[in-house]
């Protein structure tokens, strides 16, 4: 099996997949929170039948409001699934591994974590061990992968920091001694030190002010270009996506509504929800009033039948209330799940598969 140029298959972890393959392929992934409490069963459908691919060396953005399931999706993709979160069905396959990530043993998972797949998280206020200096975090996360002696390791770390324009003395600090922006940049350096194939970024700029945001985004872009990682970037902020994402997927209530290259999303949104998101961004010189959508995002424990968006959709038809539309390719690289976008869109075969437990409604 041909090997990717950068790695040594037998020494670290499971075997990689073929050259030229996708960085990540997600198929019909479902992950629910299953809970029983005082006699009541509850099932929150946070990730409900999502299929997408991320190509090598691209940044795929996911946009959506709060509680649409973005973070759960990322946790699931990173195989950080702890009860009550359970993977119900589907698969997620990375380019550097020949099997579904859920089929890997704990030892194999541990081998690929950080070396192949790393994670940048929101806020980074509290992601570093507060009682240890920053250098210890680097040792904990990366030392076992780099296979260098201590001195060479720290030299490599300092070199890496320099490339990302951070000073080496940040290593001697405790996390609480760093500012929010600094912490985020250190975390990005930490996440990229092993030159991973895939980076998952969960709202990395959300808790920062605009000026720091600009720096952090530049750093992320820089790192991605230098090390050639593929990225899944999640944020609700459309302007950040405009800045950094190559392709964009719009998520709502646990489902993907639309997916296209970023330019296309902004120029030609085909789903009413996307159109609303794009229209709500202020443009220079614009003076018109912005309308907000009526209603609120659905309760994921008891989502509406059919298309999840239909209660708030100005274009809702009868068929929208019956069956969920399938994500259909309507233009090159542009997929949409909306009946009113085109008659080509048909009901999804996979979306309405019954879940394991019958949802019984809300907890008292």
């Amino acid at each position: 099996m041909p090997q990717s140029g950068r790695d040594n298959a037998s020494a670290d972890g499971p075997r990689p997949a073929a050259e030229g393959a996708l960085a990540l392929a997600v198929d019909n992934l479902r992950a629910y929170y299953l809970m029983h409490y005082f006699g009541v069963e509850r099932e929150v459908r946070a990730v409900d039948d999502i299929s997408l691919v991320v190509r090598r060396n691209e940044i795929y953005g996911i946009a959506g409001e709060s509680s649409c399931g973005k973070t759960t999706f990322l946790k699931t993709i990173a195989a950080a699934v702890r009860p009550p979160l359970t993977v119900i069905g589907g698969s997620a396959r990375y380019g550097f591994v020949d099997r579904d990530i859920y089929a890997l043993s704990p030892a194999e998972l541990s081998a690929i974590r950080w070396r192949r797949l790393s994670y940048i998280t929101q806020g980074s206020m509290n992601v570093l061990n507060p009682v240890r200096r920053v250098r210890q975090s680097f040792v904990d996360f990366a030392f076992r992968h780099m296979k260098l002696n201590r001195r060479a390791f720290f030299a490599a770390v300092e070199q890496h920091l320099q490339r990302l324009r951070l000073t080496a003395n940040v290593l001697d600090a405790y996390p609480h001694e760093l500012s929010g922006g600094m912490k985020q940049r250190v975390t990005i350096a930490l996440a990229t030190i092993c030159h991973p194939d895939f980076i998952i970024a969960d709202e990395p700029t959300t808790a920062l002010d605009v000026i720091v945001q600009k720096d952090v985004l530049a750093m992320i872009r820089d790192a991605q270009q230098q090390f050639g990682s593929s990225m899944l970037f999640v944020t609700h902020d459309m302007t950040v996506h405009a800045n950094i994402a190559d392709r964009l997927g719009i998520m709502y209530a646990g489902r993907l509504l639309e997916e296209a290259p970023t330019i296309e999303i902004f120029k030609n949104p085909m789903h009413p929800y996307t159109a609303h998101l794009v229209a709500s961004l202020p443009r220079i010189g614009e003076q018109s009033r912005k309308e907000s959508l009526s209603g609120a995002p659905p309760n994921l424990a008891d989502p509406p039948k059919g298309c999840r968006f239909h209660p708030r959709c100005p274009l809702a038809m009868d068929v929208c209330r019956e069956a969920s539309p399938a994500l259909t390719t309507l233009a090159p690289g542009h997929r949409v799940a909306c009946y009113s976008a085109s008659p080509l869109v048909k009901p999804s075969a996979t979306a309405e598969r019954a879940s394991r437990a019958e949802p019984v409604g809300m907890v008292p």
Partner: protein
Amino acid sequence: MAGYALYVLRRFGQFLLVVFVGINIAFFVTHATPIDPITSAIAAATRFSQADPQAVQMTRVALRELYGLQGSLWEQYVAFWMRVARADFGPALSAFPTPVSTLIWRALPWTFGLLSVATLIAWGLGNLLGGLAGYYRRNVMLKVFGVVASGLQPIPNYVMAFVVLVLFGYVWPILPITGSAQINLAQGWTFAYFHSVFQHALLPVLSLVLVGTGAWFIGMRALVSNIVTEDYVTYAELGGVDHRRILLSYVMRNALMPQVTGLALSLGLIFNGAVITEVVFGYPGLGNLLIRAVYAGDYSLVIGIASMSIIAVAFAALVIDLILPLLDPRVRVA
């Protein structure tokens, strides 16, 4: 570093305050009562016999001087504090003329030894097992231990000591149940002596450990369950950091501070438990000394022990409070 020096000063000030207030309470409790200790002492002495009124009067004067009860309240107060400053609580009536301080110094090492050993084991073991139980939630053995700990924890020290005494003294008599060492064995740095001391300490320590471990276990388990949901732990798991490393360096190390603080706050109760256990097992520490002093009506000794207890516990709390900032880099002591 200047911040730490200031902290030490402030904390030491608190220590002095505690000692001052505590001993004042002891003083005023004894002096604010309508009961005259001298009258009760004399009544106790003359209960079964007639006494020459002149002898009674002389005894009264002597006792008055001994108890430091002559002069006005203010003069007594000043005299009392001057003696306390010299650690002089006067002679012990029940062991006249041995000074109270001597008796206390003889008993203190036994209490201290019992206390430290039992606390170290209970705190250490309880925290270790509690940490494991909080992290490895599915482990059956740890769950069983948790149930046992919950069952043992609410039982007060006296009852536990009593049950241990009955179990090992009567039902299954394999260990000695009184004293600190074999009576006819000479004190000294010999193996035989240490062996005997060890044997005699086993039951009191066991009793204290049984009660104490449960409390630390349950507290630590709850603490660890919360820490496990902290961002830095989930991030470390996402990073594939070795689980043992996470347990030690991320979870336990962060649980350490609250538990050390808890130790400082519980010292009063722990000392309490040790003293009570001594009484049950006839262990020659402060507890036993206190009880015998009460039975003998030994005023000076009782006040001495009460004061000494307060000082000892306050001091231990001071030491722990001074160590705490050194453990936690986040605490800014400025």
